């Protein structure tokens, strides 16, 4: 089952909610607040959510996006859920490493690997 929100593409299978980003440059300053609102609504509406953020369509990421991801991560955890990230391009992954957020966020090379760890 899939549905398209304004900036997110959601698919659900095997109890995992996978989110892909609709725009390659969506993770810039202008979009972050809207993205965060959408993701918070998604998370708050589902206790114990198993949420997978698939970054395969993301070419660019700002520091504001990193803050957004941390906020979502805390929100998911407070609802007894789990958040995983996958398919992050090498240049973007480097940003996570530089900021050491790869130590906090659960990052996997691809969606299949991430799903297997839920």
């Amino acid at each position, binding site marked *: 089952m899939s549905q398209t929100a304004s900036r997110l593409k959601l698919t659900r299978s095997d109890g995992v909610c996978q989110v892909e980003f609709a725009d390659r440059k969506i993770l810039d300053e202008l979009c972050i607040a809207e993205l965060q609102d959408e993701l918070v609504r998604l998370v708050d509406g589902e206790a114990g959510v198993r949420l997978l953020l698939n970054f395969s369509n993301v070419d660019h990421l700002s*520091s504001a996006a990193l*803050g957004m991801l941390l906020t979502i991560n805390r929100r998911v955890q407070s609802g007894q859920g789990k958040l995983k990230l996958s398919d992050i391009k090498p240049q973007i992954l480097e940003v996570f490493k530089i900021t050491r957020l790869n130590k906090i966020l659960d990052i996997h090379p691809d969606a299949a690997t991430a799903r297997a760890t839920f």
Partner: protein
Amino acid sequence: MHELYDEKLDGPLRELEVKTDLVDAKTPESVILADVERCGFSEDAVFGIKLALEEAMTNAVRHGNRYDVHKKIKVRYAVTPKRVVIMIADEGPGFLPEHVPDCTQPEFLERPNGRGLMLIRAYMTHVSYNDAGNEVRMMKENDNLPT
């Protein structure tokens, strides 16, 4: 003019004036990156310059001019095959970079913000500020020059 810019090396500076809003703040990106790509910088370098530029412009809008639409942001830049120099000045009171916490330290690691300066420093070859702290000067050397 200052330690990161050398007119003989970098050529004349081009200048853009940008409004204090996040939409207009993206204007310099397309102009500068077009020149950077034409000068043969690597894909990784272009990625880093783009990121540093966005972070610096966002800082000027948000922290420097505090979204005051009556204030402007001045962007000066020079792009050559050897390096790119970018200077971004806001009309705010300035700040002390050394007072910004290190967001990689455990006590600050999960803060929702404060990573922009770190990313600018990580991706640019040199970064400095004017005395007032309201102009950032960034330089990236081209590591893709043919040997």
